[in-house]
């Protein structure tokens, strides 16, 4: 499947402070069904603002000043995200687009079991389900992300960092969304755990067919997990291409600068002037 899932046209966000900051300026992109799109750039380039903006998750002083976001639902319906009212938006979020946040430690409620937190998703979005059905959904989710159903009665602090991040992924997967936005999902984890989580994201993507917008400033990591990568700078996408082309044939000067700014694990040494 190569058809579009999300069409962003001429999208702009301004932070309405004094003086106003153009966080995202006239960004257009097409996200394909089932692809992992990497969003890379330095802090402040607008990558997070863009990813949050397309689901209208921004709060004041951020203002969407122009452009359109169209979600091409699997049912064939085209949804104009900017036109949804509050109740429609509430239903749309998590059902169609879900998120995996960076700090699983802060994103989970420390005084509720992970099972109860996962059940909340169904209670709100699938009110028709019985308690028993909810429980079985939760058990299944925990098995899918390899935390194990028996952990549903654990509290967040009883799980390792990697397990907590898997619980976050289970929560994002709960309603079988068509798009998952992942904001630095593995940045706080060590390399071995990070690798496992990335493998799992990749497998789940193949199994369930969702698309991913993967935000990180870790370009080496992004080059491995993404199908395509958008390089952002000062609120604009300066280059968007397949991961392989970004690596082998970067067109933009800034992309080349970014690529040359990280030390290579096995390549030429001499990046650090010692």
């Amino acid at each position, binding site marked *: 499947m190569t058809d579009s899932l999300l069409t962003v046209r001429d999208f702009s966000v301004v932070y309405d402070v004094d003086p106003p900051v153009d966080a995202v300026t006239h960004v257009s992109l097409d996200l394909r069904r089932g692809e*992992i799109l990497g969003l890379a750039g*330095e*802090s402040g380039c607008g990558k997070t603002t863009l990813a949050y903006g397309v689901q209208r998750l921004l709060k004041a002083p951020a203002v969407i000043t122009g452009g359109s976001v169209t979600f091409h639902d699997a049912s064939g319906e085209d949804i104009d995200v900017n036109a949804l009212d509050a109740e429609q938006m509430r239903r749309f979020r998590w059902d169609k687009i879900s998120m995996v946040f960076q700090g699983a430690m802060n994103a989970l409620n420390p005084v509720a079991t992970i099972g109860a937190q996962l059940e909340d998703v169904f209670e709100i979005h699938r009110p028709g389900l019985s308690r028993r059905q909810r429980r079985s959904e939760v058990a299944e989710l925990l098995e899918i992300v390899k935390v194990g159903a028996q952990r549903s009665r654990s509290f967040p602090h009883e799980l390792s*960092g990697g397990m907590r991040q898997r619980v976050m992924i289970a929560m994002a997967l709960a309603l079988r969304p068509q798009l998952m936005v992942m904001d630095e999902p593995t940045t706080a*984890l*060590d*390399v*071995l*755990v*990070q*690798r496992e989580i*990335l*493998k799992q994201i*990749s497998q789940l993507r193949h199994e369930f067919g969702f698309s991913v917008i993967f935000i990180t*400033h*870790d*370009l*080496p*990591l992004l*080059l*491995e*997990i993404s*199908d395509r990568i958008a390089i952002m700078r000062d609120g604009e996408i300066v280059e968007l291409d397949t*991961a*392989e082309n970004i*690596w*082998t044939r970067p067109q933009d000067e800034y992309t080349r*600068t*970014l690529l040359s*700014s*990280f*030390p*290579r*694990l*096995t*390549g030429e*040494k001499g*990046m*650090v*002037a*010692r």
Partner: protein
Amino acid sequence: MTVLDVSHVTKIYNVRGAGQIRALDDVSFTLRSGQTIGLVGQSGSGKSTIAKILTQLETPTTGEVLLDGKPVPRRGRGLREYRQRLRMVFQDPFASLNPYHSIGYHIERPLRLDGVVPAAEIDAEVRRLLERVRLTPDAVIDRRPHELSGGQRQRVAIARALASRPSLLVADEPVSMLDVSIRLGVLNLLADLQREEGLGVLYITHDLATARHFSDEIIVLNQGLIVERGSADDVILRPQDPYTKELRAASPDPEKHFASASGILGGAQ
């Protein structure tokens, strides 16, 4: 000259319900002035326990640590001197600087407390230190931490660490919270300072790529044991121990990824 001598250090934690945990098991290494040793391993490998022992937040169960040939004093004036000789650069430059105080205050304080220079020369010394870390004194001296970028903040933390003229810098993940694009700048700065001041640096990280570029020697820790040690290139490019190999295979490596058709993720494309 040997700055740091860690010999046969073992640290055992008594954990309720779990019995005894051997966080460090007979760890020995020495660090010379002007040398950087990279200490790598995953979470729980014991690398931070070493940092805690060096900074006197923990004491070893058995074994000994010598700094400049002297054992670590437990209290009093000796301990204070020890802490002037060994300084830390922490991971999070947002948390390690006090939001209420100006940048100038952060650098001035160790100068005053440790009496490094006469009171009349403190202002000049603050400016000199800020210049040492490639910051423009006039642009930052009266600012507060929140007005600076992450990279600038980490430079301030380095200047503060240098203020008391230490012989050893313990840097625990000093660049992992920074943007990839500015990590090199901070590491280059540390490398320059180390060369110019003859500092010993213990670089604690789980990032093999920066460890390789920044260290002379790398020590790999797994569950409290040193499993491999050697020159940086030997350990990273030609790892012998299975655990080192595993760490290396897990680290992002675009060169290898695009060289092999299937990729490391096994068909992520």
